C-alpha cells in the first residue's frame, strides 16, 4: 500500500467507527483526539480494525504513533507496504 492508500484505509476505519463525524476537515498534522470525539476505547478499535482488515499487528508501546493521520501513515507505511490495497 502507498501512503495515499494507507491514509484512505485509516479514513475508512474512522468513518466506520464514527459515522457521525465529518472527516473531510481532518488536519493530518493534528492529533485525532483534538479534532473528533474519540474515547480510548474507540482508539483501540482503530488498532483492532487495522488488525482485522489488514492483519497488521501493533504492539501497545507503539500506540502513540497512531495519534495523528501523518504519524499513523509514517508508522504504518513500512509495515503495510507489501499489503495490497483492499
Amino acid at each position: 500500500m502507498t501512503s495515499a492508500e494507507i491514509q484512505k484505509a485509516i479514513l475508512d476505519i474512522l468513518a466506520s467507527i464514527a459515522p457521525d463525524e465529518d472527516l473531510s476537515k481532518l488536519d493530518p498534522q493534528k492529533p485525532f483526539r483534538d479534532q473528533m470525539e474519540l474515547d480510548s476505547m474507540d482508539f483501540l478499535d482503530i488498532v483492532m480494525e487495522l488488525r482485522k482488515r489488514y492483519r497488521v499487528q501493533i504492539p501497545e508501546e507503539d500506540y502513540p504513533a497512531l495519534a495523528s493521520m501523518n504519524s499513523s501513515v509514517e508508522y504504518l507505511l513500512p509495515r503495510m507496504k507489501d499489503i495490497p490495497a483492499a
Partner: protein
Amino acid sequence: MPATTHASYDAVIIGAGMSGLAAGIRLAHFGLRVCVVERHSSIGGLNSFYRLDGRNFDVGLHALTNYRPSECRRGPLALLCRQLRIAREELALAPQIGSAIVFPDARLEFTNDFEHFRAEVHRHFPDQKERFEELVRHLADYGELGSPHTLCSARELVTAYIQDPLLVEMLFCPILFYGGPRPHDLDFGQFSVLFRSIFMEGLARPLGGVRPLLKTLVRKFKSAGGLLRVNAGVREIVCSGQRAVAVRLENEEVLPTRFVLSSAGLRETMELCRATPLPPAGEISFFESISILDVQPADLGLDKTVVFFNDSSRFVYAKPQELVDFRSGVVCVPNHFAYDEPMTSGCVRLTALANYDRWAQLSPEAYHEAKLQCYQRLLEAAARFVPDFRDHVVAHDLFTPTTIRRFTGHHNGAVYGSPEKRYDGRTHLENVYICGTDQGLVGIVGALWSGISMANRHVLQEHSRPGAAPFSVVADDRGPF
C-alpha cells in the same frame, strides 16, 4: 458473512437481551465465532415486545437514559453507538417532554435540562440549596475521578449532604424505581450513575419503542457473522477445573466454547455451573399495567412523560407484604416524547412494587382474578396523583413478578437482579463472565454498555493475546459514565 453453526465457539453468550446482543456484536465484528443462546422464542429478555389483539405492546423500556442531542458526540450514548457501529440517527430517539416526582406536600419537575431540576430543588427546598449543590459537585467529581464501584451506602452519603428527609426521599424515589436491586438503598456508585443518567443527561425514547432497537441489534449481530439461537435454554455450563469448556442446552446439545458471557444473572449463572455457595437472590419485583386509551393522554390533562408518586413523606422501597404496594408507583406515558409524528394511540403504563412469593402461590384462577383486582387498585392509586383516565381504557395488558421471572429467568422475578453485583464481571471460573443487570449497570444504556465493556475487557483482550497485540488496557472499568 452469513451466520453459521460451528463445531465450537470462541464465545457462547447466554441471553439475547440488550447486554448479550451488544456483547455479541462486538465479538462477531472482530471475527470471533459467537453464538447467542436465548431460552425464549422471542428476544429482549426484560425489554421485550409482542403483539396482542392487533396492538403492539412494549415491556421493560420506559425510556432510555443518558440522552443527549445527536450532534453531541460525548457521553455514554454516543460512545456505545460508536462501539456498536450504529449511527445515532438509527436510534431515532425523541427526548422526553417533562417528568415529575410527586409526594403529598411537594412536587419536583424535571426535564432533560438539568438547570430546570436544579431550579425546582432550589425553589421547593430553599434551605437545602447549598447542600444540594454540594451533592451535585460531589457527584460530578465522582464521575470524573472516583471509583464507580464504591460500595458505600448511597443513603448514608446523600444524607450527609441533604438534611431535609423529604428531599432525600424524593431523590431516591425515581433512582430506586429505575435501578435499585435491593431494598431501601443502593451502592453509591450506582446512585451516582443513575442520578447523572436520569437528571443530568435525560430521558428519551424511539417512536417504535424497544422494537426497532432490538431489531437493529439483531441485524448488526447477524451481519457480523454471529449466530442467534432462540428456544435454546441452557441446562448447564460444563466445567473442567477452573474453566468452562462448553454450554449444554436443554435439548442436550453441547456447544464447546472458549468463553462464556452470561446475562442470566449472577446466582442463576452460578447455578448453571453447579457452584456453591450461591449469592443471594434479589427480591425487588414489580407489577405493571399497560393501558391503551381512546384519547391522547394530554387531552385528559395527563401531560407528563413520567410521574414518580408516593403517598407519604417517607418512600418505602422494599418487597411488600401484600401482592402489590399501592402507596407508590410510576406513571409513564410513552406518547410524551418529542416525536416527529405523534403516536397513534394513547398509552399509559403503571408500575408498582410487588411480592413474588404471593403471586407465585396463587392458583391459575386466583392469579387471573388478582391481576384484574390489582389493576383496578393501581389505577385508583395513580388517580390520586395524575388525572383519572379509567373511563378511556380500551385495552390493557398486565404483568406480574411471575411474568418477569418467566422472561428474565431471575429468581423472584427480581427486575434488577441480585443485591450483590459483580462490577468486574468475574466469576469463580476464569473464562465465565457476567454481563447485564448483575454486572451492576441498569437501564437500556447500562445493559448495552455492560455487554460492550465485558466483551472488550474479558474476551477481545484475551482473544488478541496469542501472537497478537495485547490489548491490556481495553478500557478503565468506569467506561463513559
